[in-house]
């Protein structure tokens, strides 16, 4: 079956093809399917890889994802579609060249929103292209958008909406309505997928038939053996160590947490994140129910079954992150119109601030309302897991996974309020307890395949976590590329996370250079972007040597550092703004500027 590959165009030699043929002949169909999935998965993992230009008449599942949800959904859709007999593969929009975009015929986009209404980094070039002067005519394209987002953000699903608008403006047609998903996207996404597949089936997109799929399994794109543990089936990891790692007088409460993945079979790479399910605290739930005068044992029926309201609130509903719907729904149940009037007086910005400063208990305490258990179940959004960058390498810690978590503490009108998951991890858990976790692979934030690539690692706060994983990995491998850590936090004395380890790595030659930007150690605030600016010549010298730049930590830091980098390069090389922008987008495209911001 591989003889058709014996063509001029084939990158393989005849010998290679014969070898492959021999090997493949010994496989049964399911083994062949598995292997093809494996190869595709590897292709997706190794970049930049020379992927042969796909058959553009096939439905394309394109995704732009930052934290991996969209990517997983796209892969799932491709898998379903393939199982249904179509030749479908999921691709990152980053890999689309302009020529391919112009030739797209059927495409669906899975795209999340990040930053403040921004598209994921991988989609920046696509967005730029679609709104540039040379934007393509896409009259031949039929598409649909699945937008991922989070209603608690001001610009809900803005990137998906904007993408649709841009495509429409280029003349493309939407073959199915855009679907906007909140954090509990499973159902909405499944419905949208069905719609897409139904549409494709009706319109017989592409040349494929079931028989052909059998014949060309290489178009399968996803490893089909789904991992046993996942978002909806978290692994109960045992807490083995909980250690505060900021000094006693630090304004930040940061913990180093070691969890055991023993016997889970889970494997992660440096750069990946861990999803953590955190239940609400029994006391908070009971306090809330007491204020509302609801018997905790009241039974309520929801989509996933019947629960006592106590149980539902602990394990299935968000109490700390408010969504606009929740507030509006709650206002409607008010015993007076004080909340409603308050909301009416709010513009979007005010509403945002209102939300950020409050948890549900703050609403309940401040605005009297008559609320039943069933009301509550409907008002509150489903509980979502939180992501934490993994701070360890399995090469060094085997079956453990380490996290670096800062407790989110806010001053609400009703007093101090803690973030759900960070408080759970740092303050409520004790060693020996179990916590439900799952892996969130992040292929966009890995060490370079070529381990000799110089690394510039820029982080603020807990953003240092994945770099610890990188260094553990490099140390275990005995690799020491030129590495430069630029780290920012308030005070050197109390807030240099993992300081002893970093100093040890520096001493042993695994890190060549560390610049601390400790913002409050001197009168004038001093941040990581200031280091980038002050060290512009060195930054450029490292870039010339092929360095990759990683950014991890707060969103605002990411923007500031990118600006500083652009200025540094422009200044050193004498580039005008246009050229500097091009330089930056080339860096991004070449995956030499990688970001993990939250």
């Amino acid at each position, binding site marked *: 079956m591989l003889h058709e590959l014996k063509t001029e165009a084939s990158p393989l030699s005849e010998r290679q093809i014969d070898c492959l043929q021999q090997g493949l002949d010994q496989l049964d169909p399911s083994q062949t399917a598995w292997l093809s999935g494996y190869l595709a998965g590897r292709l997706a993992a190794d970049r930049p890889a020379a992927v042969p230009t796909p058959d553009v008449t096939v439905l394309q599942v394109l995704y732009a994802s930052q934290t991996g949800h969209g990517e997983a959904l796209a892969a799932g859709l491709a898998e379903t579609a393939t199982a249904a007999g179509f030749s479908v593969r999921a691709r990152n929009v980053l890999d689309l060249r302009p020529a391919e975009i112009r030739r797209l015929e059927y495409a669906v986009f899975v795209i999340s929103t990040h930053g403040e209404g921004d598209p994921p980094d991988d989609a920046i070039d696509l967005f730029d292209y679609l709104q540039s002067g040379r934007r393509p005519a896409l009259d031949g394209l039929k598409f649909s958008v699945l937008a991922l987002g989070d209603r608690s953000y001001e610009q809900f699903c803005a990137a998906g909406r904007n993408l649709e608008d841009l495509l429409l403006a280029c003349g493309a047609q939407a073959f199915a309505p855009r679907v906007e998903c909140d954090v509990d996207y499973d159902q909405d996404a499944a419905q949208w997928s069905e719609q897409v597949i139904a549409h494709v089936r009706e319109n017989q997109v592409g040349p494929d038939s079931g028989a052909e799929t059998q014949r060309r399994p290489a178009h399968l794109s996803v490893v089909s053996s789904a991992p046993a543990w996942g978002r909806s089936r978290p692994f109960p990891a045992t807490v083995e160590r909980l*250690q*505060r*790692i*900021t*000094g*006693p007088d630090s304004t930040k409460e940061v913990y*180093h947490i070691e969890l055991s993945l023993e016997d889970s079979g889970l494997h992660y790479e440096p750069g990946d994140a861990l999803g953590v399910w955190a239940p609400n605290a029994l006391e908070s739930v009971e306090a809330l129910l007491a204020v509302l005068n609801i018997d905790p044992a009241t039974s309520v029926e929801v989509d996933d079954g019947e629960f006592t309201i106590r149980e539902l609130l602990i394990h299935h509903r968000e109490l700390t992150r408010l969504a606009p719907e929740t507030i509006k729904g709650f206002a409607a149940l008010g015993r007076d119109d004080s909340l409603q009037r308050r909301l009416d007086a709010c513009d979007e910005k005010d509403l945002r601030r209102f939300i950020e400063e409050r948890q549900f208990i703050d609403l309940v305490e401040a605005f009297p309302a008559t609320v039943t258990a069933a009301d509550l179940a409907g008002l509150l959004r489903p509980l979502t897991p939180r992501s934490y960058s993994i701070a360890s390498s399995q090469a060094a810690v085997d079956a453990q996974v380490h996290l670096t978590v800062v407790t989110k503490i806010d001053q609400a009108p009703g007093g101090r309020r803690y973030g759900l998951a960070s408080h759970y991890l740092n303050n409520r858990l004790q060693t020996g307890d179990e916590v439900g976790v799952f892996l969130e692979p992040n292929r966009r934030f890995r060490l370079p395949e070529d381990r000799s690539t110089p690394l510039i690692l820029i982080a603020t706060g807990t953003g240092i976590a994945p770099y610890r994983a990188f260094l553990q990995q490099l140390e275990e491998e005995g690799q020491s590329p030129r590495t430069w*850590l630029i780290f920012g936090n308030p005070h*050197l*004395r*109390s807030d*240099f*996370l*993992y*300081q*002893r*380890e*970093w*100093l040890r790595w*520096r001493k042993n030659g695994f890190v060549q250079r*560390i*610049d*601390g*930007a*400790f913002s409050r*150690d*001197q009168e004038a605030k001093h941040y990581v972007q200031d280091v980038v600016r002050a060290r512009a010549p060195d930054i450029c010298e490292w870039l010339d040597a092929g360095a990759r730049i990683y950014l991890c930590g707060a969103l605002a830091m990411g923007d500031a550092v990118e600006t500083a980098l652009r200025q540094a390069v422009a200044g050193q090389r004498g580039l005008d703004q246009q050229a500097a922008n091009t330089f930056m987008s080339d860096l991004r495209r070449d995956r030499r500027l990688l970001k993990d911001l939250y």
Partner: protein
Amino acid sequence: MKKPDTNLSPVERIKARSDFLRGTLVASLADSATGALAEDDTQLSKFHGFYQQDNRDLREDRRRRLLEPDYQFMIRARVPGGVCTPGQWLKLDEIARLWANGTLRLTTRQAFQLHGVLKRDLKNSIRAINDSLLDTIAACGDVNRNVMSSAVPEHSALHREVHDLARAVSSHLTPRTTAYHEIWLSDGGPRQRVAGSAVPDAEPLYGPVYLPRKFKMAFAVPPRNDVDVFAHDLGFIAIADKNVLAGFNVTVGGGMGMTQADPATYPRLAEVIGFCKPEQVLAVSEAVLTLQRDYGDRTNRKHARLKYTIDDRGLDWFRAEFERRLGDSLAAARPWEFSDNGDRYGWQEGDDGLWHLGLFIENGRIADHPGAEHLSGLREIAKRLEGEIRLTPNQNLVLANVPPAQRADIDALVRAHGLDGFRQASPLRLHAMACVGLPTCGLAMAESERYLPELVGRIEASMAGHGLGREAITIRMTGCPNGCARPYLAEIGLVGKGPGLYDLFLGAAFDGARLNRKYRESVRENDVLDLLDELFGAFVSDRKTGEHFGDYLLRAGFLDDCAAPGPGRDVPL
């Protein structure tokens, strides 16, 4: 003679490659990843007047937090002869509050120490000290240290004359390297260059590797031995004819420090080697210092002080080599008499009609505590004082040369800020002294400054029980055998050995002219109290009139079985 290079102690090599004390200090200061200096620079920093330390109370906790030790610096400011102006005081006070831990520490060598200064604030602090016309260079390191001089001789003119000489020797023996100015006082400009190459630095007196070890000098004005003249490498005992300075008896080879369980190290009293004229003081100092520079042991820092050079080669050899260098010989020593090695408290009139107020500062630590706002109080006093401030060799203070008209004002301020502790404190407490010890001193093995006040309280109770409440007994504690509070010259000496564990030394002379002896090893507080209680009992019943506790213990035979501290003598001459 100079030993072959291979045997040199590591510090010698660091000095040799330091380019006149530069090392990599500038890079160390700029390293934003750590609060510490590069390892070699922690040796060189001493010559610039500061020590790298860490808060030892926090060590274990920070290790668990994966943070480096709580690195911080102790800066020592030299105050030659212990005399500073109110303006200088105010500056130090400001630095203490801005960049240090909010306290000022008066040392046993009449200098200031600031603790808890972070690396980022070193430059500001050192600059500010220099702005005040005090300095930090050579406050520590293998050089001549702060030169001491009796705080309040009865005769003002004599004090001034001796003090002026102390200052002159101090500046004569100050290192000449330009590194200090370059690193701390200039605005980061590179070293001055001429025709492309750096102007070579030079140390005419010290040479590029400085001394083998620290070198200490003191001037005593009898009858006061507050400086403990016999504890110094080089000492001058002023001899006056009818209140006019005639010259000095010269003492050499004193030192306190010893090392735990190393019998080759020991405290040693200085020996009197003759008499010199005031105009010979510089030459004598230079001769002794260069002799030690050339013959001191550079292979073993535990054995590198002048006292070992003398004991190894004999006093005769020393005298010959010294006289060769001096180009002269000393006259015969003249008689003198010391009364005590403590301080005087309260008002005292000088012979020029100006007044001196001795203030008790427990262990030299000046801080603000509720009811005892000493730091604030002294700030207020310094703002008004029409006189000078003297740091005493026993970690206390004298407000000196106060016009009679200002006495009442000063008294009011002293009372208002709880600085009049000397009025109530027992003589035992007024004669107590403790080194810094934990948590800053890296060498401490037991508590010292933080603990002695409590212990004194308990000993006071015991003494009161024997009717000894008004008896003056010198008691000194150190956190290790290095002897920073000169514990071997106290009637009761407690030398730290481990947490809560001390060696008990007894029987030194009240005037500092005889070392004590180790009476018991490794005792805890209860043992100390029991042992002392018993001895107080014997003392009360058997003492001769006016006999001091230390003298009594020796005479009554309590110390007969206790070995003398080393091959050196335990009484001078």
